[in-house]
């Protein structure tokens, strides 16, 4: 019975059908399926499949985006029940993301966020034009393992250095690592400002974060 439901859940995520995913999540609760099982055995395998297919070039960003949204819908329904039952989802790590102050570009950052989420990380996206102190507050609030700081402009990339300095001052490193990305950034730049890592694309960012958290 549950097996069939799990298969439908998997397929709803692969299809990127958020309406179906949400309905299946409700159905799971009604049938008394443990929410954690619904996520781990039903929805996550769908997302894993989509991630794998993306990796080999068979599926594309719009597929990933819709699948991630379907997954989110389902989790949003299941999470309150899990909280009430005091069960916790296993995640590979917690990541806080944002674009530095003065910069409103977010395409690359959003891509990184989506790919990390589909890879099993818990992602908290602070959006754009983020004050350095907000990175620190969010990292503390979410007990983040990784903070990703994005900048597109050569004029705003200096903000990445400020974030690194704030994390040092707050004593959050080395437990929480600060990584940087964006068109003007480079591994040279990351080393210069004392960041813990750099990747030039979203796929590399997932590999970097996995390596940093030892996943």
């Amino acid at each position: 019975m549950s097996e069939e439901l799990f298969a439908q859940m998997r397929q709803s995520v692969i299809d990127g059908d958020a309406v179906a995913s949400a309905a299946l999540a409700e159905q799971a609760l009604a049938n008394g399926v443990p929410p954690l099982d619904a996520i781990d055995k039903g929805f996550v395998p769908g997302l894993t499949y989509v991630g794998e297919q993306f990796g080999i070039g068979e599926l594309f960003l719009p597929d990933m985006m819709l699948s991630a949204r379907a997954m989110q819908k389902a989790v949003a329904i299941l999470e309150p029940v899990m909280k009430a039952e005091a069960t916790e989802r296993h995640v590979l790590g917690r990541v806080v993301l944002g674009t530095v102050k003065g910069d409103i570009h977010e395409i690359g950052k959003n891509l990184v966020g989506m790919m990390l989420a589909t890879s099993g990380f818990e992602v908290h996206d602070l959006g754009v034009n983020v004050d350095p102190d907000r990175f620190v507050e969010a990292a503390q609030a979410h007990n983040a393992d990784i903070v990703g700081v994005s900048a597109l402009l050569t004029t705003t990339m200096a903000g990445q250095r400020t974030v690194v300095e704030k994390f040092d001052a707050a004593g959050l490193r080395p437990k929480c690592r600060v990584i940087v990305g964006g068109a003007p950034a480079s591994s040279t730049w990351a080393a210069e400002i004392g960041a813990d890592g750099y990747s030039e694309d979203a796929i590399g960012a997932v590999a970097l974060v996995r390596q940093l958290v030892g996943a």
Partner: protein
Amino acid sequence: MRPSFELLEPALIDRVVDEALALLAGPGVKVEEPEAVRLLVGAGGTADGNRVAITQAMVQRALDTVPHAFDLYTRSGKPAVCYGSGAVHFDPGSSGVAYLDPITLEARQSMAADLARLTRVADALPAYDAVSTAIVCHDVPTEIGDLYRLFVCLANSDKPIVTGAFTPRGSGVMVDLLALDAGGRQALADKPRAVFDVCPSPPLTWSEFACRNIMDLGRAGVPAEMVSMPLAGVAAPVTLIGSIVQHAAECLAGVVLNQLAAPGAPIVWGGAPAIVDMRTGATPMGAIETAMIDGGYAAVGHRLGLPTHAYMGATDSKIVDAQAGLETGMTALVGALAGVDLISGPGMLDFLLAQSAEKLVVDAEVIGMAQRLLRGIGTPTETLATGAFAEAGPEGRFLELPETRRLFKSEQYLPSRIIDRQSRRAWLDAGGEDAFGRARGRVEEIMATHPLPEVEAGVAAAMAARVREAGAPFGLGEALPGVPEGFGRG
């Protein structure tokens, strides 16, 4: 007849403009600068916070005052980029952050000396009608990065300059430098030498700095060039035509703002749109669809009577290879046939991240061929062929005809040595190099032989003093990297 091609039929252009006007009316444009919001509201716009709806009447008034043509001048006051004249011009792409080392093929951080090299190469090659602030100079303080790039261009070339400011402060000093070069503010307004790129943010957003910039430039009488960049499928509709509509809406908002601040100010309908590669999220500049968006919005600009610009003739390849050649050639040709007034992009690799002097040299051949195509098939003789046959006799001795000697140079574009047309044996004897290898030699040759511009000592000293004054608080020392030795030193 000048060859051209039509990407959008007239009825479709009308629909593009109609939908752009509809977007301006609702949702409207996000305007992140209070004075800009006030200007727009004062002219009939409606603001909900920083989201401003712009009416068709406002757009029409702006289009009534905007110039349909204007020129950029060389140092000696000769018009060299004639926007709106029907001619197609080329300049190197702007604002790379890396420079391709021609020996190691490493893309290293770009420095002021690299910009000087790129500028001198573009100055030397007739294919380029303007130079550009092609890269960021990592060896000068970030705070003066914008104005210092312009200074390097002024010190190394006589040609018009495509540039842009990073901050309002930088923009002020840059106008000072250009006025010093031109011989005063009025002289600069009469014969502008530079155009400033101003970028709206997709979708439908004019940031605080972009608003400030487009108003200030207009008021200073300095030409502005909008670089709108819809990214199809991510920061714009996935369809090419949808991205063209978004481009039109963003640029119409810019024209309105610019003309409200300074009616009659020169402004260009430009952009750097791209499709998004759905496998990686990359925004390929060498994609044919990217070039199609460019050609499409240029047609809209032509219809509205605005001078046009586009980022074409670039590649996403990391080195100057077959991909670089084919992407550069194809997109530059689309731009030329679409009649874009100024095409920026040559020299650029890797999604506009890196510049290469060698690629500039290779791309000059693309431009030479594109310009030849635009001159079309002429009829310089009275009969098309019968006269030549009558003179050449039954054996067909065409090579001996005076007409052949007189006309071959205008009938044919004579490429430089970058384009190999030798026999295999002669090619091998000359070293058997590929185009990139030959370009390396040509760059060295230009650097050794191309004369530096002659800038009056007093003017050079005043420019250098202005740059030092602006740079001192940020740690610019005595040395002026990228500037010819002796420039501005009494």
